[in-house]
């Protein structure tokens, strides 16, 4: 194909994905709420021209769902992934699905979709056998056509077979192709969003330009805990074209121009009342511990930790902390809503179309079928767009101006203020090794701020105890799911603690993990990491600046190795290289998986070294990227990624797992470089200098 036609075709295709209804598409609800529909027609539709449309209730956040899901359909139907048109995240057109989070797409949705495609293949072959008067065993299938192997002229296309109608035959569960016959899985394909995203054609919620759109800017309280009481809008209303909408404590300034709406909002004088939390980013850790203490409960317990401690020859006590961290997606939360003919349609930047639909329906007291969520391209999620406040407030405004599309695009200050943060946390651990340096005799841990999720790992421990609080509303600020929630906090504590134990016992960190590993997969992964990284065993600190950490997310395992250089005068940590060895089972899209790992490492270099929400009472002090510090190009090292050949046919998701051990590997590398243990994430230069003082004092 000449590039010109390709470019035009693909640009048009990008619009087709989201803004028109492919032929034959119809809403399909599952028979039971919270289940996947069993009819494969819910996922796959073949249009009269033979194009295969695939409908899934996930969203494309950049993680590559659109490409990997198309690969699965292409695998079963013998197509190129480019021949599958994806429509994601439209609650009217796509079957119900779980939110796009928790690394669930490959874990939950992929087998369902692949099964649907396998059934569709069998049904199409059956239809073709009848039409061509041949046995299905004598048929071949490729690129949307089916023919008789012996006489290829006896041929029929998908379009001719299905004629744009729903396929009525059903065969129940049909086994997908065995791995040995797969030609798409495991191969490299261009991302389906590559052309749209490199030409500016990709549309995000804020790029929709529905005729007559009014941009709404919402009056926010200056601090959390405060609510709007009175507002003087007189000055704002003098701006030509301004409209004010109020709904309870929600006050919005509307204007055809987004920047004019923003300027007019600045003219509104509000008074606010309420109580701010009495805490700040320095006192938060003691605040959490004090508030949580009465509610601490034993969540996991094995054996008698008191007896275990008596058997220990090396005991270490550690306290590990992490700050609040924002999702800070580059696309701030954005939605467009239109109330028309008794239905609310919301085009929303989101990770969970069906959760958004239900939230809007509940807030507006509408039936769920009166709300439609449409999902354009989403400019990053990381857990931050699992929740629907922007869709709800946009819909509330739109409800008051029937027929007028309303766009709400948070600015950066709003996005940093309204985000649900990765929780601040404190993890205290007291643990010990036996005299033979081969067994953890006890591990006694108190987790505050997050749950004990993924605190345990594939390590043998003679006794252990994990306490975590059951205190509702523990946090003074809104918290949310941040990529690998709980797991990365607990892994940072566990892997730092193990590193400290190894150092105190004079043991190489890899050797200690090998002795503790109770899963052969972990042993193989350690070997793979050691070999790829070139890890030479030695007890730390060696001065080389290398660090190891392991982590898990469900069945996925990750081993991370880092090398850093620490400037002892400034406290600045420079990451020189970073390796992850990853076992996520069968890797369907190798380049997509690699991108997720590289992205997680890069993102978590920011998590480990610089990202922190600063606050005083209910005031969020970070307003923009001048103080909220995301990792820039100069912070990122050479990255190596290796996947274990796990020999399984099941696939784990990969959004979360590579996040889990990053901060711990870097902290352990800092220790190896300097002898100073950094225990507070992010370990910015100030905290590194503080840790270095303790070494100097020793």
């Amino acid at each position, binding site marked *: 194909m000449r*590039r*010109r*036609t390709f*470019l*035009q075709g693909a640009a048009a295709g990008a619009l087709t994905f989201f803004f028109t209804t492919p032929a034959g598409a119809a809403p399909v609800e599952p028979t039971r709420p919270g289940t996947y529909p069993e009819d494969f027609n819910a996922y796959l539709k073949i249009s009269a021209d033979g194009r295969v449309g695939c409908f899934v209730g996930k969203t494309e*956040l*950049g993680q*590559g769902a659109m490409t990997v899901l198309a690969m699965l359909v292409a695998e079963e139907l013998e197509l190129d992934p480019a021949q599958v048109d994806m429509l994601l995240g439209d609650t009217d057109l796509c079957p119900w699905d779980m939110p796009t989070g928790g690394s669930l797409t490959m874990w939950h949705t992929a087998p369902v979709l692949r099964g649907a495609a396998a059934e569709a293949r069998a049904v199409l072959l059956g239809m073709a056998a009848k039409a061509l008067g041949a046995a299905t065993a004598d048929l071949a299938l490729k690129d949307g056509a089916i023919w008789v192997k012996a006489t290829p002229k006896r041929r029929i296309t998908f379009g001719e077979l299905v004629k744009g109608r729903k396929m009525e035959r059903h065969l129940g569960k049909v086994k997908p192709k065995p791995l040995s016959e797969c030609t798409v899985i495991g191969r490299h394909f*261009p*991302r389906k*969003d*590559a*052309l*749209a*995203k*490199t*030409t*500016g*054609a*990709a*549309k*995000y919620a*804020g*790029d929709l*330009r529905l005729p007559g759109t009014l941009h709404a800017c919402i009056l926010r309280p200056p601090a959390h805990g405060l609510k709007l009481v009175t507002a003087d809008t007189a000055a704002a209303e003098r701006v030509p074209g301004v409209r004010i909408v109020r709904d309870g404590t929600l006050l919005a300034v509307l204007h055809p*121009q*987004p*920047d004019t709406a923003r300027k007019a909002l600045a003219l509104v004088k509000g008074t606010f009342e309420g109580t701010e939390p009495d805490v700040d980013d320095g006192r938060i850790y003691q605040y959490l511990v004090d508030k949580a203490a009465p509610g601490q409960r034993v969540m996991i317990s094995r054996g008698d930790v008191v007896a275990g401690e008596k058997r220990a020859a090396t005991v270490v006590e550690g306290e590990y902390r992490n700050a609040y961290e924002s999702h*800070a*997606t*580059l*696309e*701030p939360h954005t939605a467009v809503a239109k109330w028309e003919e008794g239905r609310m349609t919301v085009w929303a930047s989101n990770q969970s179309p069906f959760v958004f639909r239900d939230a809007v329906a509940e807030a507006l007291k509408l039936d769920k079928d009166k709300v439609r969520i449409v999902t354009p*391209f*989403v*400019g*990053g999620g*990381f857990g931050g767009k699992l929740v629907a406040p922007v869709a709800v407030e946009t819909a509330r405004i739109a409800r008051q101006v029937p027929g007028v599309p309303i766009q709400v*695009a948070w*600015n*950066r200050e709003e996005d940093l203020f309204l985000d649900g943060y990765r929780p601040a946390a404190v993890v205290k651990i007291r643990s010990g090794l036996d005299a033979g340096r081969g067994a953890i005799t006890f591990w006694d841990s108190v987790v505050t701020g997050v749950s004990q999720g993924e605190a345990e790992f594939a390590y043998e421990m003679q006794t252990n105890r994990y306490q975590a609080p059951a205190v509702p509303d523990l946090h003074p600020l809104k918290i949310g799911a941040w990529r690998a929630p709980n797991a990365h906090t607990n892994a940072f504590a566990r892997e730092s603690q193990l590193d400290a134990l190894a150092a105190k016992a004079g043991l190489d960190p890899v050797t200690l993990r090998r002795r503790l590993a109770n899963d052969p997969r972990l042993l193989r992964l350690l070997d793979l990491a050691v070999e790829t990284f070139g890890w030479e065993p030695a007890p730390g600190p060696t001065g080389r600046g290398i660090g190891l950490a392991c982590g898990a997310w469900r069945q996925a395992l990750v081993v991370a190795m880092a090398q850093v250089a620490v400037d002892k005068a400034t406290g600045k940590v420079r990451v020189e290289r970073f390796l992850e060895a990853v076992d996520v089972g069968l890797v369907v899209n190798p*380049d997509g998986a690699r*991108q997720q790992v*590289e*992205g*997680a*490492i*890069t*993102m978590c270099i920011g998590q480990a070294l610089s990202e922190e929400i600063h606050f005083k009472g209910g005031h969020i002090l970070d307003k*923009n*990227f*001048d103080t909220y510090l*995301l*990792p*820039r*190009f*100069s912070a*990122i090292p*050479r*990255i190596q990624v290796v996947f274990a050949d796990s020999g399984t046919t099941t696939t784990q998701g990969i959004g979360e797992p590579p996040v889990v051990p990053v901060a711990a590997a870097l902290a352990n590398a800092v220790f190896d470089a300097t002898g100073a243990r950094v225990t507070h994430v992010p370990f910015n230069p100030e905290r590194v200098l503080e840790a270095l003082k303790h070494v100097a004092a020793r």
Partner: protein
Amino acid sequence: MDATVSFVLNGKPVTVSSPRDRMLVWVLRDELGLTGTKVGCEAGLCGACTVLVDSEATLSCSTAVGDVAGKSVLTIEGLALDGKLDPVQKAFQDHHAFQCGFCTSGMIMAAWAFLKKKPRATRTEIVEAMEGNICRCGAHVRILDAVESAGKAKGGVR
């Protein structure tokens, strides 16, 4: 007070009626419908709004439309010529040098302006040139690879 501002946009003359101090990004997105240029921070801190003004990388969130009067503005939509992708766009595609894509327009425009001046730059020089552009998904290494390879591509940027 609205003024009449004329400039060349993606090779064609345009005239808009706008306050001279209105930021260029809003004029591009709202008046001219070119939404490939993104708004990420409105303070010149993230680079998502980068466009070319007379071939110089320029933050359109912090540039008044009056200041581009008589100049030539190029946005991501104008980079492909006669349907043929620019080598920088091609390199970003080939390297999958993006995830969510929200920073990508700005990245490509910043890279283009830099490579125009220095097609065979060192890795360190590329890092310095791209430092003002933020990618949240962590495509950094691929973006650097893409910029490096675009510079080496036959003919370089156009």
